[in-house]
Protein backbone atom coordinates (compact mmCIF):
# COMPACT_ATOMS: atom_id res chain seq x y z
CA UNK A 1 0.00 0.00 0.00
CA UNK A 2 2.73 2.43 1.02
CA UNK A 3 6.21 1.81 -0.25
CA UNK A 4 9.15 3.89 0.87
CA UNK A 5 12.31 3.89 -1.20
CA UNK A 6 15.66 5.36 -0.18
CA UNK A 7 13.92 8.12 1.71
CA UNK A 8 16.22 10.85 3.01
CA UNK A 9 15.29 14.05 4.78
CA UNK A 10 17.87 16.66 5.69
CA UNK A 11 16.69 19.68 7.66
CA UNK A 12 18.78 22.61 6.56
CA UNK A 13 19.95 24.87 9.34
CA UNK A 14 22.12 27.49 7.62
CA UNK A 15 20.84 30.70 6.07
CA UNK A 16 20.79 29.43 2.49
CA UNK A 17 20.80 25.76 3.35
CA UNK A 18 24.41 25.31 4.37
CA UNK A 19 24.79 22.50 6.83
CA UNK A 20 21.92 20.35 7.98
CA UNK A 21 20.58 17.68 10.23
CA UNK A 22 20.02 14.29 8.69
CA UNK A 23 16.69 13.24 10.17
CA UNK A 24 16.01 10.29 7.91
CA UNK A 25 18.90 8.57 6.17
CA UNK A 26 18.20 6.32 3.19
CA UNK A 27 15.25 4.41 4.60
CA UNK A 28 13.26 1.83 2.64
CA UNK A 29 10.37 -0.32 3.79
CA UNK A 30 6.88 -1.28 2.84
CA UNK A 31 3.48 -1.36 4.48
CA UNK A 32 1.06 -3.87 3.05
CA UNK A 33 -2.71 -3.57 2.91
CA UNK A 34 -4.35 -4.44 6.21
CA UNK A 35 -1.08 -4.42 8.06
CA UNK A 36 -0.02 -2.51 11.15
CA UNK A 37 3.63 -1.55 11.10
CA UNK A 38 5.12 -0.08 14.20
CA UNK A 39 7.99 2.30 13.78
CA UNK A 40 10.01 2.28 16.97
CA UNK A 41 12.85 4.52 17.97
CA UNK A 42 14.08 7.00 20.54
CA UNK A 43 13.62 10.78 20.27
CA UNK A 44 15.41 12.13 17.26
CA UNK A 45 15.52 8.82 15.45
CA UNK A 46 13.46 10.24 12.59
CA UNK A 47 10.28 8.25 13.14
CA UNK A 48 7.99 11.28 13.32
CA UNK A 49 9.71 12.75 10.26
CA UNK A 50 8.81 9.64 8.27
CA UNK A 51 5.18 10.09 9.34
CA UNK A 52 5.22 13.72 8.22
CA UNK A 53 6.83 12.79 4.92
CA UNK A 54 4.11 10.23 4.23
CA UNK A 55 1.45 12.84 5.06
CA UNK A 56 3.19 15.28 2.69
CA UNK A 57 3.58 17.82 5.50
CA UNK A 58 7.24 18.12 4.53
CA UNK A 59 9.09 17.31 1.34
CA UNK A 60 11.75 14.61 1.13
CA UNK A 61 15.30 15.61 0.27
CA UNK A 62 15.85 12.39 -1.64
CA UNK A 63 13.97 9.19 -2.26
CA UNK A 64 10.38 8.41 -3.08
CA UNK A 65 7.20 7.30 -1.37
CA UNK A 66 4.60 5.37 -3.32
CA UNK A 67 0.95 4.99 -2.45
CA UNK A 68 -0.92 2.30 -4.39
CA UNK A 69 1.93 2.17 -6.87
CA UNK A 70 2.00 5.89 -7.64
CA UNK A 71 4.39 8.46 -6.25
CA UNK A 72 2.60 10.51 -3.60
CA UNK A 73 3.62 13.93 -4.89
CA UNK A 74 1.73 13.17 -8.11
CA UNK A 75 -1.62 12.90 -6.35
CA UNK A 76 -3.87 15.93 -6.03
CA UNK A 77 -4.29 16.91 -2.35
CA UNK A 78 -7.96 15.98 -2.42
CA UNK A 79 -7.37 12.55 -3.89
CA UNK A 80 -4.45 11.82 -1.59
CA UNK A 81 -5.94 12.91 1.69
CA UNK A 82 -9.13 10.98 1.04
CA UNK A 83 -6.98 7.87 1.27
CA UNK A 84 -4.12 8.74 3.57
CA UNK A 85 -4.81 10.30 6.93
CA UNK A 86 -2.99 10.98 10.16
CA UNK A 87 -3.53 11.31 13.88
CA UNK A 88 -0.96 13.29 15.80
CA UNK A 89 0.82 12.97 19.08
CA UNK A 90 -0.73 15.79 21.05
CA UNK A 91 -4.54 15.73 20.97
CA UNK A 92 -4.75 19.08 22.75
CA UNK A 93 -2.80 20.94 20.08
CA UNK A 94 -4.57 19.11 17.25
CA UNK A 95 -7.66 21.19 17.92
CA UNK A 96 -7.82 24.90 17.36
CA UNK A 97 -8.62 26.16 20.88
CA UNK A 98 -10.93 28.92 19.67
CA UNK A 99 -13.29 26.69 17.73
CA UNK A 100 -15.68 23.95 18.72
CA UNK A 101 -14.68 20.36 18.07
CA UNK A 102 -17.17 20.23 15.19
CA UNK A 103 -14.80 22.37 13.17
CA UNK A 104 -12.47 19.51 12.28
CA UNK A 105 -15.44 17.62 10.83
CA UNK A 106 -16.75 20.70 9.04
CA UNK A 107 -13.37 21.14 7.36
CA UNK A 108 -13.42 17.51 6.31
CA UNK A 109 -16.81 17.85 4.66
CA UNK A 110 -16.12 21.20 3.07
CA UNK A 111 -12.79 20.26 1.52
CA UNK A 112 -12.65 16.50 1.20
CA UNK A 113 -16.07 14.91 1.01
CA UNK A 114 -18.76 17.45 0.00
CA UNK A 115 -21.59 15.26 1.24
CA UNK A 116 -25.09 16.57 1.99
CA UNK A 117 -25.18 17.86 5.57
CA UNK A 118 -27.52 15.27 7.09
CA UNK A 119 -25.72 12.36 5.48
CA UNK A 120 -22.35 13.67 6.61
CA UNK A 121 -23.30 14.27 10.23
CA UNK A 122 -24.93 10.87 10.31
CA UNK A 123 -21.61 9.39 9.29
CA UNK A 124 -19.81 11.46 11.92
CA UNK A 125 -22.09 10.17 14.67
CA UNK A 126 -21.65 6.64 13.45
CA UNK A 127 -17.86 6.82 13.48
CA UNK A 128 -17.82 8.56 16.86
CA UNK A 129 -19.83 5.64 18.20
CA UNK A 130 -17.45 3.18 16.58
CA UNK A 131 -14.55 4.62 18.58
CA UNK A 132 -16.56 4.38 21.75
CA UNK A 133 -17.69 7.99 22.07
CA UNK A 134 -21.13 9.41 22.61
CA UNK A 135 -21.69 12.06 19.90
CA UNK A 136 -23.40 14.24 22.49
CA UNK A 137 -20.19 14.35 24.53
CA UNK A 138 -18.22 15.58 21.54
CA UNK A 139 -20.22 17.71 19.13
CA UNK A 140 -20.82 21.27 20.21
CA UNK A 141 -18.04 21.14 22.81
CA UNK A 142 -14.83 23.13 22.98
CA UNK A 143 -11.58 21.14 23.06
CA UNK A 144 -10.74 22.29 26.59
CA UNK A 145 -13.98 20.73 27.82
CA UNK A 146 -12.85 17.27 26.76
CA UNK A 147 -10.22 14.84 27.98
CA UNK A 148 -7.14 13.82 26.01
CA UNK A 149 -8.53 10.36 25.41
CA UNK A 150 -11.80 11.73 24.05
CA UNK A 151 -9.96 14.15 21.77
CA UNK A 152 -7.63 11.47 20.48
CA UNK A 153 -10.57 9.17 19.72
CA UNK A 154 -12.37 12.04 18.01
CA UNK A 155 -9.34 12.39 15.75
CA UNK A 156 -9.45 8.69 14.92
CA UNK A 157 -13.16 9.07 14.19
CA UNK A 158 -12.28 11.91 11.84
CA UNK A 159 -9.99 9.63 9.87
CA UNK A 160 -12.79 7.05 9.73
CA UNK A 161 -15.34 9.53 8.42
CA UNK A 162 -12.97 10.27 5.58
CA UNK A 163 -12.77 6.55 4.92
CA UNK A 164 -8.99 6.59 4.76
CA UNK A 165 -7.23 3.41 3.71
CA UNK A 166 -3.97 4.29 5.37
CA UNK A 167 -3.42 5.93 8.73
CA UNK A 168 -0.29 7.47 10.17
CA UNK A 169 -0.67 7.22 13.95
CA UNK A 170 2.12 9.35 15.37
CA UNK A 171 2.66 8.55 19.07
CA UNK A 172 -1.07 8.70 19.56
CA UNK A 173 -0.97 6.93 22.89
CA UNK A 174 1.84 8.80 24.58
CA UNK A 175 -0.43 11.52 25.97
CA UNK A 176 -3.10 9.15 27.24
CA UNK A 177 -3.69 7.50 30.58
CA UNK A 178 -2.58 3.92 30.89
CA UNK A 179 -6.20 2.82 31.22
CA UNK A 180 -7.35 4.43 27.97
CA UNK A 181 -4.27 3.36 26.04
CA UNK A 182 -5.34 -0.19 25.49
CA UNK A 183 -8.82 0.95 24.42
CA UNK A 184 -7.38 3.14 21.69
CA UNK A 185 -4.99 0.39 20.61
CA UNK A 186 -7.84 -2.09 20.39
CA UNK A 187 -9.83 0.36 18.27
CA UNK A 188 -6.93 0.44 15.81
CA UNK A 189 -6.71 -3.34 15.78
CA UNK A 190 -10.45 -3.70 15.19
CA UNK A 191 -10.30 -1.24 12.31
CA UNK A 192 -7.56 -3.24 10.67
CA UNK A 193 -9.56 -6.42 10.99
CA UNK A 194 -12.97 -5.04 9.99
CA UNK A 195 -12.03 -2.49 7.33
CA UNK A 196 -8.61 -3.59 6.18
CA UNK A 197 -7.06 -0.31 7.36
CA UNK A 198 -3.26 -0.14 7.10
CA UNK A 199 -1.54 1.73 9.88
CA UNK A 200 1.91 3.13 10.45
CA UNK A 201 2.12 3.12 14.22
CA UNK A 202 4.88 5.46 15.31
CA UNK A 203 5.92 4.91 18.90
CA UNK A 204 8.83 4.90 21.29
CA UNK A 205 7.20 2.24 23.40
CA UNK A 206 8.26 -1.28 22.46
CA UNK A 207 5.53 -3.03 24.38
CA UNK A 208 2.79 -1.06 22.63
CA UNK A 209 4.41 -1.84 19.31
CA UNK A 210 4.53 -5.51 20.16
CA UNK A 211 0.92 -5.51 21.34
CA UNK A 212 -0.52 -4.20 18.11
CA UNK A 213 1.77 -4.58 15.13
CA UNK A 214 2.36 -7.21 12.50
CA UNK A 215 5.70 -5.79 11.45
CA UNK A 216 8.20 -3.84 13.50
CA UNK A 217 10.74 -1.36 12.19
CA UNK A 218 13.39 -0.17 14.63
CA UNK A 219 15.20 3.06 13.87
CA UNK A 220 18.31 4.61 15.28
CA UNK A 221 19.52 8.07 14.26
CA UNK A 222 17.64 8.12 10.99
CA UNK A 223 18.43 4.60 9.82
CA UNK A 224 16.66 1.30 10.19
CA UNK A 225 18.72 -1.01 12.39
CA UNK A 226 16.36 -3.94 12.43
CA UNK A 227 13.00 -4.84 10.95
CA UNK A 228 10.78 -7.78 10.26
CA UNK A 229 7.84 -9.75 11.59
CA UNK A 230 7.07 -8.48 15.05
CA UNK A 231 7.29 -11.98 16.56
CA UNK A 232 10.69 -12.60 15.02
CA UNK A 233 12.17 -9.26 15.97
CA UNK A 234 11.03 -9.58 19.57
CA UNK A 235 11.83 -13.27 20.01
CA UNK A 236 15.14 -13.20 18.25
CA UNK A 237 16.62 -9.69 18.35
CA UNK A 238 19.87 -9.44 16.46
CA UNK A 239 21.06 -5.86 16.58
CA UNK A 240 22.68 -4.74 19.87
CA UNK A 241 20.43 -1.67 19.88
CA UNK A 242 17.28 -3.79 19.68
CA UNK A 243 18.59 -5.99 22.46
CA UNK A 244 19.28 -2.96 24.59
CA UNK A 245 15.77 -1.58 23.94
CA UNK A 246 14.13 -4.88 24.82
CA UNK A 247 16.21 -5.12 27.94
CA UNK A 248 15.10 -1.60 28.96
CA UNK A 249 11.38 -2.40 28.91
CA UNK A 250 10.25 -2.47 32.52
CA UNK A 251 8.33 -5.59 33.53
CA UNK A 252 5.88 -5.81 36.33
CA UNK A 253 7.23 -8.76 38.24
CA UNK A 254 10.89 -7.92 38.52
CA UNK A 255 13.11 -5.03 39.60
CA UNK A 256 15.37 -3.65 36.96
CA UNK A 257 18.98 -4.85 36.93
CA UNK A 258 21.15 -3.60 34.10
CA UNK A 259 22.68 -6.39 32.12
CA UNK A 260 26.45 -5.92 31.98
CA UNK A 261 26.70 -7.45 28.58
CA UNK A 262 24.29 -5.13 26.78
CA UNK A 263 24.75 -1.82 28.56
CA UNK A 264 28.40 -1.65 29.50
CA UNK A 265 30.43 0.28 26.94
CA UNK A 266 34.16 0.71 27.47
CA UNK A 267 36.02 3.80 26.37
CA UNK A 268 34.56 6.97 24.96
CA UNK A 269 34.33 7.27 21.18
CA UNK A 270 31.45 9.74 20.91
CA UNK A 271 33.51 11.86 18.55
CA UNK A 272 33.82 9.02 16.04
CA UNK A 273 32.07 9.64 12.73
CA UNK A 274 31.30 7.22 9.92
CA UNK A 275 30.87 3.49 9.95
CA UNK A 276 28.08 1.98 12.04
CA UNK A 277 25.90 4.68 13.63
CA UNK A 278 25.59 2.66 16.84
CA UNK A 279 29.36 2.30 17.14
CA UNK A 280 29.78 4.80 19.97
CA UNK A 281 27.20 3.07 22.16
CA UNK A 282 27.77 -0.53 21.20
CA UNK A 283 29.34 -2.86 23.78
CA UNK A 284 30.26 -5.40 21.09
CA UNK A 285 31.98 -3.04 18.70
CA UNK A 286 34.98 -4.16 16.71
CA UNK A 287 37.24 -2.39 14.26
CA UNK A 288 35.25 -3.74 11.30
CA UNK A 289 32.25 -1.70 12.47
CA UNK A 290 34.12 1.47 11.51
CA UNK A 291 33.90 0.40 7.89
CA UNK A 292 30.29 -0.80 8.01
CA UNK A 293 27.90 0.86 5.52
CA UNK A 294 24.71 0.29 7.53
CA UNK A 295 22.99 -1.91 4.92
CA UNK A 296 20.30 -4.30 6.08
CA UNK A 297 20.91 -7.99 5.52
CA UNK A 298 18.51 -10.87 5.93
CA UNK A 299 18.78 -12.80 9.19
CA UNK A 300 15.94 -15.18 8.49
CA UNK A 301 12.76 -15.01 6.44
CA UNK A 302 11.09 -11.58 6.92
CA UNK A 303 13.71 -10.40 9.38
CA UNK A 304 16.52 -8.02 8.54
CA UNK A 305 19.18 -6.33 10.62
CA UNK A 306 21.93 -3.81 9.99
CA UNK A 307 24.79 -5.24 12.01
CA UNK A 308 28.02 -6.53 10.57
CA UNK A 309 28.71 -8.71 13.62
CA UNK A 310 25.39 -10.45 14.19
CA UNK A 311 23.29 -9.70 11.16
CA UNK A 312 23.39 -12.75 8.89
CA UNK A 313 25.74 -12.73 5.93
Amino acid at each position, binding site marked *: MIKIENLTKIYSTGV*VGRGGIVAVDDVSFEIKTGEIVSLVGESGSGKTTIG*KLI*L*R*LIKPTKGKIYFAGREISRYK*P*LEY*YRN*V*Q*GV*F*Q*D*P*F*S*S*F*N*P*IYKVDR*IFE*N*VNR*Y*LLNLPKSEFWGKVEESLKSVGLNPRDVLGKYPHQMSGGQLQRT*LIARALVIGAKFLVADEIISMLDASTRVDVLNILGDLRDSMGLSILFVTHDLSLGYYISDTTVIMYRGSIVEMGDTEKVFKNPVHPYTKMLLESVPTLDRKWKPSEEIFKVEGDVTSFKGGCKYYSRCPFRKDVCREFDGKLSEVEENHWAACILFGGD
Partner: protein
Amino acid sequence: MKEWLKKHDTLYFMLTNKRFVGGMIFILSMVTLAILGPWLAKIELRWYLENGVKEALDPTANIGIPYSPPSSQHWLGTNSFGQDVFLQLVYGLRSSLLIGIIGGGLATFIGLVVGFVSGYSGGMIDELLMMLTNIMLVIPTMAVLIIIAAYLPYRGVMIESVIIGFTGWPWTARAVRSETLSLKSRGFVHLARISAVKPMRIIFGEIAPNMLSYVFMVFILQFGGSILAAVGLDFIGLGPTRGTSLGLMLQQAVLWNAIQLGMWWWIIPPGAIITALVAALYTVNTGLDEAFNPKLREM
Protein backbone atom coordinates in the same frame (compact mmCIF):
# COMPACT_ATOMS: atom_id res chain seq x y z
CA MET B 1 -24.63 41.44 33.20
CA LYS B 2 -21.91 40.68 35.70
CA GLU B 3 -22.41 36.95 35.22
CA TRP B 4 -22.20 37.30 31.47
CA LEU B 5 -18.98 39.29 31.76
CA LYS B 6 -17.44 36.69 34.06
CA LYS B 7 -17.89 34.12 31.32
CA HIS B 8 -16.10 36.25 28.75
CA ASP B 9 -13.13 36.75 30.99
CA THR B 10 -10.95 38.69 28.54
CA LEU B 11 -13.68 41.28 28.14
CA TYR B 12 -14.14 41.30 31.90
CA PHE B 13 -10.48 41.98 32.53
CA MET B 14 -10.48 44.65 29.83
CA LEU B 15 -13.38 46.54 31.35
CA THR B 16 -12.06 46.30 34.90
CA ASN B 17 -8.57 47.39 33.91
CA LYS B 18 -7.98 50.98 35.00
CA ARG B 19 -5.41 51.70 32.30
CA PHE B 20 -7.63 50.41 29.53
CA VAL B 21 -10.76 52.18 30.75
CA GLY B 22 -8.97 55.47 31.51
CA GLY B 23 -7.16 55.58 28.17
CA MET B 24 -10.27 54.56 26.29
CA ILE B 25 -12.38 57.26 27.93
CA PHE B 26 -9.91 59.92 26.80
CA ILE B 27 -9.66 58.53 23.26
CA LEU B 28 -13.42 58.25 22.89
CA SER B 29 -13.93 61.79 24.18
CA MET B 30 -11.43 63.02 21.58
CA VAL B 31 -13.30 61.09 18.89
CA THR B 32 -16.56 62.63 20.09
CA LEU B 33 -15.00 66.09 20.00
CA ALA B 34 -13.83 65.46 16.44
CA ILE B 35 -17.25 64.25 15.36
CA LEU B 36 -19.24 66.98 17.12
CA GLY B 37 -16.60 69.64 16.36
CA PRO B 38 -18.24 71.39 13.38
CA TRP B 39 -21.54 71.48 15.25
CA LEU B 40 -19.86 72.97 18.36
CA ALA B 41 -18.13 75.47 16.12
CA LYS B 42 -21.54 76.65 14.91
CA ILE B 43 -22.40 77.51 18.51
CA GLU B 44 -19.02 79.12 19.07
CA LEU B 45 -19.12 81.24 15.93
CA ARG B 46 -22.87 82.00 16.01
CA TRP B 47 -22.17 85.77 16.04
CA TYR B 48 -20.45 85.55 12.64
CA LEU B 49 -23.08 83.26 11.19
CA GLU B 50 -25.90 85.51 12.38
CA ASN B 51 -24.18 88.41 10.67
CA GLY B 52 -23.89 86.56 7.40
CA VAL B 53 -20.16 85.74 7.44
CA LYS B 54 -20.58 82.47 5.54
CA GLU B 55 -16.90 81.48 5.42
CA ALA B 56 -16.71 81.60 9.23
CA LEU B 57 -16.82 77.80 9.39
CA ASP B 58 -13.75 77.42 7.18
CA PRO B 59 -10.77 76.83 9.51
CA THR B 60 -8.44 78.72 7.17
CA ALA B 61 -10.64 81.83 6.94
CA ASN B 62 -9.22 84.93 8.58
CA ILE B 63 -12.42 86.05 10.26
CA GLY B 64 -11.58 87.41 13.68
CA ILE B 65 -9.29 90.03 15.12
CA PRO B 66 -5.73 88.64 15.15
CA TYR B 67 -3.97 87.91 18.46
CA SER B 68 -7.16 87.85 20.52
CA PRO B 69 -7.03 85.64 23.64
CA PRO B 70 -9.78 83.11 24.48
CA SER B 71 -13.20 84.68 24.90
CA SER B 72 -16.84 83.71 24.55
CA GLN B 73 -16.66 84.57 20.85
CA HIS B 74 -13.44 82.61 20.21
CA TRP B 75 -13.23 79.84 22.80
CA LEU B 76 -9.55 79.30 22.20
CA GLY B 77 -8.77 82.74 20.81
CA THR B 78 -7.41 83.55 17.37
CA ASN B 79 -3.97 83.25 15.83
CA SER B 80 -1.81 85.82 14.05
CA PHE B 81 -4.10 85.71 11.00
CA GLY B 82 -7.35 86.00 12.89
CA GLN B 83 -8.20 82.33 12.33
CA ASP B 84 -10.26 80.69 15.06
CA VAL B 85 -8.03 78.29 17.05
CA PHE B 86 -10.88 76.10 18.34
CA LEU B 87 -12.16 75.61 14.80
CA GLN B 88 -8.68 74.67 13.63
CA LEU B 89 -8.29 72.35 16.59
CA VAL B 90 -11.41 70.27 15.89
CA TYR B 91 -10.65 70.01 12.18
CA GLY B 92 -7.01 69.24 12.95
CA LEU B 93 -8.14 66.53 15.37
CA ARG B 94 -10.30 65.05 12.62
CA SER B 95 -7.44 64.78 10.19
CA SER B 96 -5.08 63.43 12.87
CA LEU B 97 -7.54 60.69 13.82
CA LEU B 98 -8.14 59.96 10.14
CA ILE B 99 -4.40 59.60 9.57
CA GLY B 100 -4.23 57.33 12.60
CA ILE B 101 -6.99 55.07 11.29
CA ILE B 102 -5.95 54.96 7.65
CA GLY B 103 -2.18 55.06 8.13
CA GLY B 104 -2.26 52.73 11.13
CA GLY B 105 -4.78 50.45 9.45
CA LEU B 106 -2.75 50.25 6.27
CA ALA B 107 0.50 49.58 8.12
CA THR B 108 -1.20 46.88 10.21
CA PHE B 109 -2.77 45.31 7.14
CA ILE B 110 0.45 45.21 5.09
CA GLY B 111 2.40 43.97 8.11
CA LEU B 112 -0.11 41.19 8.71
CA VAL B 113 -0.24 40.01 5.11
CA VAL B 114 3.54 40.06 4.70
CA GLY B 115 4.04 38.38 8.09
CA PHE B 116 1.44 35.66 7.51
CA VAL B 117 2.52 34.81 3.97
CA SER B 118 6.19 34.91 4.83
CA GLY B 119 5.86 32.85 7.99
CA TYR B 120 3.48 30.32 6.55
CA SER B 121 5.04 29.64 3.18
CA GLY B 122 8.68 29.67 4.25
CA GLY B 123 11.43 28.92 1.74
CA MET B 124 12.14 31.32 -1.11
CA ILE B 125 9.04 33.49 -0.60
CA ASP B 126 9.97 33.92 3.05
CA GLU B 127 13.54 34.90 2.21
CA LEU B 128 12.42 37.45 -0.38
CA LEU B 129 9.74 39.02 1.80
CA MET B 130 12.07 39.21 4.77
CA MET B 131 14.76 40.78 2.60
CA LEU B 132 12.25 43.44 1.57
CA THR B 133 11.22 43.92 5.20
CA ASN B 134 14.79 44.29 6.36
CA ILE B 135 15.53 46.80 3.61
CA MET B 136 12.49 48.82 4.71
CA LEU B 137 13.71 48.60 8.29
CA VAL B 138 17.18 49.98 7.67
CA ILE B 139 16.02 52.83 5.44
CA PRO B 140 15.42 55.82 7.70
CA THR B 141 11.66 56.25 7.43
CA MET B 142 11.63 59.99 8.06
CA ALA B 143 14.04 60.62 5.20
CA VAL B 144 11.87 58.58 2.82
CA LEU B 145 8.77 60.38 3.99
CA ILE B 146 10.46 63.74 3.37
CA ILE B 147 11.52 62.76 -0.13
CA ILE B 148 8.14 61.32 -1.12
CA ALA B 149 6.21 64.20 0.42
CA ALA B 150 8.48 66.78 -1.22
CA TYR B 151 7.82 65.25 -4.64
CA LEU B 152 4.06 65.65 -4.37
CA PRO B 153 3.05 69.25 -5.07
CA TYR B 154 -0.51 68.80 -3.73
CA ARG B 155 -0.82 66.76 -0.60
CA GLY B 156 -3.97 65.86 1.20
CA VAL B 157 -4.54 64.00 4.43
CA MET B 158 -5.20 60.80 2.43
CA ILE B 159 -1.88 60.87 0.58
CA GLU B 160 -0.09 61.58 3.84
CA SER B 161 -1.67 58.61 5.61
CA VAL B 162 -0.97 56.29 2.67
CA ILE B 163 2.69 57.31 2.70
CA ILE B 164 2.86 56.71 6.44
CA GLY B 165 1.06 53.37 6.11
CA PHE B 166 3.41 52.14 3.41
CA THR B 167 6.49 52.85 5.50
CA GLY B 168 5.28 51.78 8.93
CA TRP B 169 4.70 48.05 8.49
CA PRO B 170 8.12 46.28 8.78
CA TRP B 171 8.19 45.69 12.54
CA THR B 172 4.65 44.38 12.47
CA ALA B 173 5.54 42.03 9.62
CA ARG B 174 8.48 40.62 11.54
CA ALA B 175 6.51 40.09 14.72
CA VAL B 176 3.59 38.49 12.90
CA ARG B 177 5.96 36.25 10.97
CA SER B 178 7.57 34.85 14.09
CA GLU B 179 4.18 34.29 15.71
CA THR B 180 2.99 32.52 12.56
CA LEU B 181 6.10 30.34 12.56
CA SER B 182 5.27 29.09 16.02
CA LEU B 183 1.57 28.58 15.27
CA LYS B 184 2.06 26.77 11.98
CA SER B 185 3.81 23.82 13.59
CA ARG B 186 0.82 23.22 15.88
CA GLY B 187 -1.24 20.10 15.42
CA PHE B 188 -4.36 21.91 14.27
CA VAL B 189 -2.53 23.44 11.32
CA HIS B 190 -1.21 20.02 10.31
CA LEU B 191 -4.71 18.64 10.68
CA ALA B 192 -6.12 21.37 8.45
CA ARG B 193 -3.43 20.63 5.89
CA ILE B 194 -4.27 16.95 5.74
CA SER B 195 -7.94 17.97 5.35
CA ALA B 196 -6.82 19.62 2.08
CA VAL B 197 -7.76 23.07 3.42
CA LYS B 198 -6.37 25.79 1.14
CA PRO B 199 -3.32 27.70 2.44
CA MET B 200 -5.12 31.05 2.53
CA ARG B 201 -7.97 29.48 4.52
CA ILE B 202 -5.45 28.01 6.95
CA ILE B 203 -3.77 31.38 7.45
CA PHE B 204 -6.95 33.39 7.92
CA GLY B 205 -9.21 30.67 9.33
CA GLU B 206 -6.91 28.81 11.70
CA ILE B 207 -3.81 30.90 12.42
CA ALA B 208 -5.02 34.51 12.33
CA PRO B 209 -7.93 34.13 14.78
CA ASN B 210 -5.44 32.91 17.38
CA MET B 211 -3.61 36.20 17.03
CA LEU B 212 -6.64 38.47 17.21
CA SER B 213 -5.65 40.06 20.51
CA TYR B 214 -2.15 40.67 19.21
CA VAL B 215 -3.48 42.20 15.98
CA PHE B 216 -5.70 44.51 17.97
CA MET B 217 -2.75 45.71 20.02
CA VAL B 218 -0.58 46.16 16.96
CA PHE B 219 -3.28 48.33 15.39
CA ILE B 220 -3.43 50.55 18.45
CA LEU B 221 0.34 51.02 18.43
CA GLN B 222 0.34 51.74 14.70
CA PHE B 223 -2.52 54.18 15.22
CA GLY B 224 -0.46 56.20 17.70
CA GLY B 225 2.69 55.83 15.61
CA SER B 226 0.95 57.16 12.50
CA ILE B 227 -0.36 60.22 14.34
CA LEU B 228 3.14 60.98 15.60
CA ALA B 229 4.69 60.46 12.16
CA ALA B 230 2.13 62.80 10.62
CA VAL B 231 2.83 65.45 13.25
CA GLY B 232 6.54 65.13 12.47
CA LEU B 233 5.91 65.60 8.75
CA ASP B 234 3.57 68.53 9.30
CA PHE B 235 5.99 70.22 11.64
CA ILE B 236 8.80 70.30 9.09
CA GLY B 237 6.40 71.71 6.52
CA LEU B 238 5.53 68.58 4.56
CA GLY B 239 1.99 68.22 5.82
CA PRO B 240 -1.22 68.67 3.86
CA THR B 241 -1.13 71.63 1.49
CA ARG B 242 -4.84 72.17 2.00
CA GLY B 243 -6.89 72.05 5.15
CA THR B 244 -5.38 71.87 8.59
CA SER B 245 -3.98 69.39 11.06
CA LEU B 246 -2.64 69.43 14.58
CA GLY B 247 0.92 69.27 13.29
CA LEU B 248 0.33 72.17 10.92
CA MET B 249 -1.03 74.25 13.79
CA LEU B 250 2.12 73.59 15.79
CA GLN B 251 4.31 74.44 12.80
CA GLN B 252 2.57 77.76 12.19
CA ALA B 253 2.52 78.61 15.88
CA VAL B 254 6.28 78.16 16.04
CA LEU B 255 6.87 79.98 12.73
CA TRP B 256 4.88 82.99 13.92
CA ASN B 257 6.57 83.13 17.32
CA ALA B 258 3.46 82.20 19.30
CA ILE B 259 5.55 81.42 22.37
CA GLN B 260 7.49 84.66 22.29
CA LEU B 261 4.27 86.60 21.79
CA GLY B 262 2.70 84.84 24.75
CA MET B 263 -0.04 83.25 22.63
CA TRP B 264 -0.29 80.10 24.72
CA TRP B 265 -3.77 79.38 23.39
CA TRP B 266 -2.33 78.79 19.94
CA ILE B 267 0.38 76.29 20.83
CA ILE B 268 -0.67 74.51 24.02
CA PRO B 269 -4.03 72.98 22.96
CA PRO B 270 -2.76 71.13 19.85
CA GLY B 271 0.47 70.08 21.60
CA ALA B 272 -1.41 68.84 24.65
CA ILE B 273 -3.95 66.93 22.59
CA ILE B 274 -1.29 65.16 20.51
CA THR B 275 0.69 64.21 23.60
CA ALA B 276 -2.33 63.07 25.55
CA LEU B 277 -3.80 61.15 22.62
CA VAL B 278 -0.64 59.18 21.93
CA ALA B 279 -0.06 58.63 25.66
CA ALA B 280 -3.65 57.38 26.02
CA LEU B 281 -3.16 54.95 23.13
CA TYR B 282 -0.05 53.50 24.73
CA THR B 283 -1.83 53.29 28.08
CA VAL B 284 -4.69 51.38 26.47
CA ASN B 285 -2.11 49.10 24.95
CA THR B 286 -0.53 48.21 28.28
CA GLY B 287 -4.02 47.74 29.70
CA LEU B 288 -4.87 45.32 26.89
CA ASP B 289 -1.61 43.52 27.49
CA GLU B 290 -2.77 42.78 31.01
CA ALA B 291 -6.24 41.74 29.88
CA PHE B 292 -4.99 39.38 27.18
CA ASN B 293 -2.10 37.93 29.13
CA PRO B 294 -3.30 36.19 32.28
CA LYS B 295 0.19 36.30 33.78
CA LEU B 296 0.09 40.11 33.95
CA ARG B 297 -3.39 40.39 35.41
CA GLU B 298 -3.81 42.14 38.72
CA MET B 299 -5.89 39.84 40.85
